[in-house]
């Protein structure tokens, strides 16, 4: 009797769970997902994925998503080793990483920044290359005032450096930097403090900093207006995708999270982090 009763109780409980799962499944797609997911990688993407994870956890109470920041290369190593279920990279997959699967959740552009007092309004691709390779060393040769140019370059391994080099078909050793920096914020601070400096940073970060009065300007590059709208329309050449990557077959939880992270439900979070939502 007792066994039957407990079985009945269990059946009832299961039933309730299924109903609850269906109620939730209406928005989530399939059945209720459970468990823990470890996400590691790019420190550019980590704050965004952290916010997406928080919203995902609210929708699925049985889920915990741990976001760890360490860099795009760490993401690749961790998903291959299996220490992370999901990786975050702030670039496209390289040739040697084609065996991984990537899903773009947002886009970020790279923009050149100069000091606010620098009268330069536009630079051609050729001028940009000349400045960064040291062929042009004074602003007056690039159409500006007299003053020695300080080239602020990113450290090796930074995704923005890779995209910059790739776009201008340069090698890391071609660049003659006056200052080498790490993060976007550091680049903005360096340029805001030096009237003759030039650097390149994330367009979302630069737009935000310029709007709150930081002493930087974004000249047009080769006639392109560096705006978030241009990145959104896919017209901006110096853009990079922010990807979630996996290795091998995806768990149900990873699948559900990737679907959620690339859905319109998180577009407000993407915009709040000054990125551009990915367009399918």
């Amino acid at each position, binding site marked *: 009797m007792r066994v039957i009763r407990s079985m009945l109780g269990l059946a009832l409980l299961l039933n309730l769970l299924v109903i609850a799962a269906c109620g939730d499944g209406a928005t989530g797609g399939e059945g209720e997902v459970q468990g823990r997911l470890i996400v590691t990688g790019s420190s*550019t993407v*980590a704050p*965004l994925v952290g*916010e997406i994870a928080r919203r995902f956890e609210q929708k699925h109470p049985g889920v915990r998503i*741990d*976001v*760890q920041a360490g860099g795009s290369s760490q993401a690749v190593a961790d998903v291959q080793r299996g220490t992370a279920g999901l990786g975050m990279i702030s670039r496209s997959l390289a040739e040697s990483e084609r065996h991984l699967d990537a899903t773009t959740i947002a886009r970020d552009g790279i923009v050149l920044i100069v000091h606010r007092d620098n009268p330069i309004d536009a630079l051609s691709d050729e001028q940009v290359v000349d400045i960064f390779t040291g062929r042009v060393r004074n602003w007056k040769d690039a159409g500006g005032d007299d003053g020695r140019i300080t080239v602020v370059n990113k450290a090796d391994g930074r995704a923005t450096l890779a995209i910059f080099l790739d776009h201008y078909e340069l090698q890391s050793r071609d660049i003659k930097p006056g200052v080498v920096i790490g993060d976007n*914020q550091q680049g903005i601070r360096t340029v805001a403090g030096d009237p003759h400096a030039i650097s390149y940073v994330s367009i*979302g970060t630069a737009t935000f900093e310029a709007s709150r009065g930081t002493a930087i300007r974004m000249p047009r590059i080769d006639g392109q207006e560096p705006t978030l709208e241009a990145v959104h329309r896919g017209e901006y050449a110096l853009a990079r995708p922010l990807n979630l990557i996996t290795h091998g077959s995806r768990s149900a939880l990873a699948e559900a999270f990737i679907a959620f992270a690339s859905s319109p439900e998180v577009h407000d979070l993407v915009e*709040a982090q000054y990125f551009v939502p990915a367009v399918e």
Partner: protein
Amino acid sequence: MSDVKSSQPAWMSNRHFDWPDRLATVLVWLVAISIVAIFVWIVGDLVRHGVPHLSVSFLFEAPRDAGRAGGVGPILVSTGLILGVCLAVSIPVGVGTAMLLAEFTRRGGGFGLLVRRSLDVLAGVPSIVFGLFGNALFVIYLGMGFSILAGGLTLACMVLPILIRSTEEGFRAVPDDYRRAAAALGLTRSAALWQILLPAATPGLIVGLVLGIGRALAETAALLFTSGYVDRMPESVLDSGRALSIHIYDLAMNVPGGDGNAYASALVLIVLLLAINGLTFWLADRWLGRRITPQ
């Protein structure tokens, strides 16, 4: 000051050579004043930028919008847990090793020398190396994952050299008369250690603890790879938890518009450090120092 003057040889105080003396005085004053100025500048800057973002709810709320809004509640809890794990491991091991070095090995003995040399090398290792070591040993090899436990143990490894060396100095500073008197009174070695030598060595232990806690609370690099980046309220020490220093780093470097809360968090960190140091002095004085009164 007076030190500089009295150390001048007699020929310098004759009128003809008076100016080097003056110059030295001015230089020493300038250096001392600039040290104070740097301290005042840093704290003043933190207070000026941090106070507008500070409130009681900042201490208890969870961070929102990647840390731009909300507070540091879960982060304070994680920081406390990491420090707790670190101290729970490092104090017994540290005091034990210091006792061994000071009381049970000969001054010039081979084993003591080996331990001391290893500690000196460890004390000079950059924290990022401890981070990678902690990541390899605790996180991956021992399977703890990114967790408060792994972070605390890594910090313990980092803090131990400082703690051991200064506690050892504390033991060595205890006059040999104490040991002879204890032996003359027929105290066992362990009774002499616990009742007399350890309380008398407390000043050394406190210095080690204060330095160690300072290093642990300020640590970013070693924790990024061990206790991790998760800013949720930790449920156990096996959860990943973001330390205050990592939160400040993240807000300042990765989050556009996060600098206001970064300043506020830095202010919280400094106040926390001062409070913990004060508490350390008070507890050590109360528990150990009162048992005996050296000198």
